[in-house]
């Protein structure tokens, strides 16, 4: 059990998917104008990651014979899962569907989910360890999207010099956040 907690904590904070592995930077720039939207996209990503983790675990029984097919197989599985989640959200929460817009289908081409499946395979996680990894990674992403969103809401009222407007200032914020998260280095596994 403590092993599971360690995996969860590492994925969420120590090796945060966004700030340490540089994964999924497009939504960080794209949907963090409002912290609430970032938070919801983070949760949707977490959901997809949990499903993808289970799918990757099942598929690895076959793929162990053909490791060179891994990326193709994973990417097709992820695209199908995202399609299902999209239909599900469209039916049960049309408001959220409209709010997330293009970024919902783009979870399919999101590097976070693909690398989650690959890391899980490379590290030989069991089903439950994989789930802890997916939950930790997803919640870590959600936290970063929400924090960047909150900071950007503050920046609306700040006198930013013209040359720093747009993505430049968002990356400076991300650099500082990343520096803060470096403080956790060495506290988890891998």
């Amino acid at each position, binding site marked *: 059990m403590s092993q599971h907690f360690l995996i969860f904590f590492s994925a969420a904070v120590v090796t945060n998917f966004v*700030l*340490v*592995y*540089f*994964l*999924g*930077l*497009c939504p960080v*720039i*794209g949907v963090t104008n409002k912290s609430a939207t970032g938070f919801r996209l983070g949760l949707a990503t977490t959901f997809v990651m949990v499903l993808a983790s289970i799918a990757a675990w099942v598929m690895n029984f076959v793929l162990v014979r053909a490791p*060179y*097919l891994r*990326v*193709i197989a994973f*990417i*097709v599985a992820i*695209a199908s899962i995202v399609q299902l989640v999209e239909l599900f959200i469209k039916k049960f929460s049309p408001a959220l569907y409209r709010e997330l817009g*293009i*970024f919902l289908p*783009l979870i399919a*081409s*999101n*590097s976070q989910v*693909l*690398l989650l499946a*690959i*890391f899980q395979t*490379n590290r030989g996680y069991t089903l439950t360890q994989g789930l802890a990894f997916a939950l930790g990674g997803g919640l870590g992403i959600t936290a970063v999207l929400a924090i960047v969103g909150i900071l950007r809401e503050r920046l609306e009222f700040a006198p930013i010099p*013209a*040359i*720093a*407007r*747009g*993505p*430049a*200032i968002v*990356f*400076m914020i*991300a*650099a*500082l956040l*990343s*520096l803060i998260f*470096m403080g956790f280095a060495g506290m988890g596994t891998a």
Partner: protein
Amino acid sequence: MSMAVKASTGPNTPQAVLTRGLWHENPVLVQTLGLCSALAVTNAVANSLAMGLATAFVLVCSSAIVSLMRKYIAHEIRITTYILIIATFLGVADLSLEAIVPEVHKSLGAYIALIVTNCVVLGRQEAFASRNTVGLSVLDAIGNGVGFTIALLLMGIPREVLGNGTFLGVHVMPAGFDPWVVMMLPPGGFFMIGILLLGANWHDLRKIARARAVAPATAPATAPAREREEALV
């Protein structure tokens, strides 16, 4: 990915198509695409070069195939088709890198797989290769692939020189130089791309100011420049 689905601007002469991606519509510095791999692997010059060239290879091959098949790919399943084509060439690039430069392949690790989800590659299929002839698509892919490599080197060279005191593994800084370790760590990647984007904004603002001084009424030539002017001013 957000800005990937955007058609290119300007005339489609072979020369313009080839040079556009190099600088004025540079995928990383101007369109801010493909950032994940641009930040993750650029802590050493060798890694940056290998990643850039592998991406360029995948981009050129997939653009050629997508452009050849553009009349037969159904609109509804085009993205899935592009991704499958890209993933196939990624497999080729992955195995070739492992055979040619095993050490670099090892240090790039799982990030090689990220070429599949790189918005530069998918973006060129959607914006260019699916609507143009094979020859033009290949030229466009070469331009964008080399532009991507240039951007990666712009990130990788300062990060390795300042963070480790070396260039391609050879010591270049004076003996008393204390390496800025933070440049090799994740925050260094974010700082470096932030600084490059500041530079791009500064360059744009200066160009706009100069254009205004010469002829106040003329708008900037290209659509991206116009969009950026609206965002900046």
